[in-house]
């Protein structure tokens, strides 16, 4: 169990991920589904960023007087890209939601099934 306690942040992200997934599956409102997706993505991003942490690591800025250990900067760079992807997906989803509302007049998934 010591391993789990040491990685308690990882467990938290898994829980957050599952909360997001639950919202996507259980909620009927399309906006809420999208919010669930964003929670899920945030969990993934936070997980990868923390994976770059090194014990007692400092910011990886090389200059006079800089001494290691440094935190790994790579996950931050990856997640910047990941955030851009997530933003574009959210924007596209919102525009689709607007289109759905214009066409069908509702955003509840169960009512939309009837409208199809």
């Amino acid at each position, binding site marked *: 169990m010591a391993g789990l306690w040491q990685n308690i942040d990882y467990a938290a992200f898994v829980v957050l991920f599952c909360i997001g997934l639950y919202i996507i599956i259980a909620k009927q409102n399309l906006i809420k589904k999208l919010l669930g*997706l964003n929670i899920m993505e945030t969990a*993934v991003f936070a*997980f990868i960023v923390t*994976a770059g942490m090194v014990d007692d690591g400092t910011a990886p800025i090389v200059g006079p007087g800089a001494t290691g250990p440094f935190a790994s900067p790579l996950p931050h760079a990856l997640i910047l*890209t990941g955030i851009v992807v997530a933003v*574009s997906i959210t924007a*596209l989803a919102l525009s*689709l939601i607007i289109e*759905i509302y214009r*066409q069908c007049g509702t955003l509840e998934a169960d009512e939309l099934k009837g409208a199809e």
Partner: protein
Amino acid sequence: MAHWLPLAPFVPLVAAALTPALARGRPGWARGWAVAMTAFCTLATALLTRRVIEEGPFSYVLGGWAAPWGIELRFDEFSTAALFISFIMLLVLVFSGPYVRRAVPGPRIVWYYTLLLINLGGMLGFVVTGDLFNLFVFMELVAVSSYALIAVGGGRTAALAAFKYLMAGAVSSALILFCIGVLYALTGSLNMGDVAQRLAVVESRAPMLLALAGMTAGFLVKAGLFPVHVWLPDAHAIAPSPINAVSSALVVKLGIIGLLRVLPLFDAADAVSLVPLYEVLAWLGGISIVAGAFFAIFQQDIKLMLAYSTISNIGYIVLGLGLAGQLAVTGAGIHVLNHALIKAALFLAAGAMIHRSGYRTLRDLRGIGRAMPWTTFALLIGVLAIIGLPPTAGFLGKWYIALGALEAGRPGFAVVVLAGALLVFIYFARMLNAFYFRTPTHEEMLAVREAPASMLGPVLVLAVLCVLGGLFGRWPVNLIAPAVGRLVGGG
């Protein structure tokens, strides 16, 4: 020239960014521009394919930063899918001209071509990258442009289908990214070859199992396998036909190619065994074959029929992977390529019929065999190929998968392969009957004219390839043999 490899994925991406500016005030230029760029990609990937035949797999180091630190582009035998992707995209773009003018609202036509170029660049990047995070980025490029393309035609249900697709796609992408993060936390590397080596000595079993299961599940959702296929039929039937051809023939295959890239990472690892996973894949594949074919029989809408048949064929490929023998995996690899040709031919031929007649159900399309003889003929060749009758391209993959099932001592799965083909034969008979032998439901059907040359051309080229792909089947089999050997030999 060494630089063809990076040029193949990046030229269409840059070209896509330039398209709206170039076509500003001259919307007619968008298609010509997209066709020219895709023709360039076809040339580039053809040269790359020739090189891989002569020399075997090769890498390109982006920006002079050596792998494992820099990003590596790697072209191996499976990457030859890039040639099929570019070529089918080229035919789809040629086909799109007259179809899109009617099916897509005017101001969106430029965006249509822009999105298709992004889609092409993403797919090419996906099959040639040797870096896990890069794989994710290219996958997202393909996914986001596909979501938008599903909705591009407008209409009452298009946005809803696109939203469903977006949700399924984004959840699976998040899952895959999460697993890439787990692998990075375990190994500290993102280069595929490097990760595979480092995983071999990793001892913590639970995170590895999580990563393996998550990635497999994520890629299977992308591939539209049976229990997680719910997004596929709507998305593939509602969009304009050329988009169906791209998404059904090419985009779902990325899920399979993703699996082919990810599974070898775990080959050398002692902590996890791939055998139980292969067993699950084989069963899921088998169920998917029968379920997809079964749903397809009961469809009236010709495009929905083809969409369900995609689920069935993805089942064949996953079954081949799951049997994990030399023959079965060869069959799966071949069927990835041949199904792309066949499904593109089918969707484009169906698109030509819908374009000319305005109808899309079997009942309404009765008698079209006399009005549009060439298109109907091409469609029927495509259907023969998808059943897998001997001289056609579809036969080869299914034959190898069935042999692989016997080789693995699992004759039950060989029966499933055969049963799938028999079920498909039923809807072939229904189509044949409706197109040639029934009296037309609509009087004006006999006045429908054959499709214009720019639509008929690509359809006939694909139909011919459906036959040639079977007659010259030895070439692709020999081509992917080394890659299959690495995949099977390692596990």
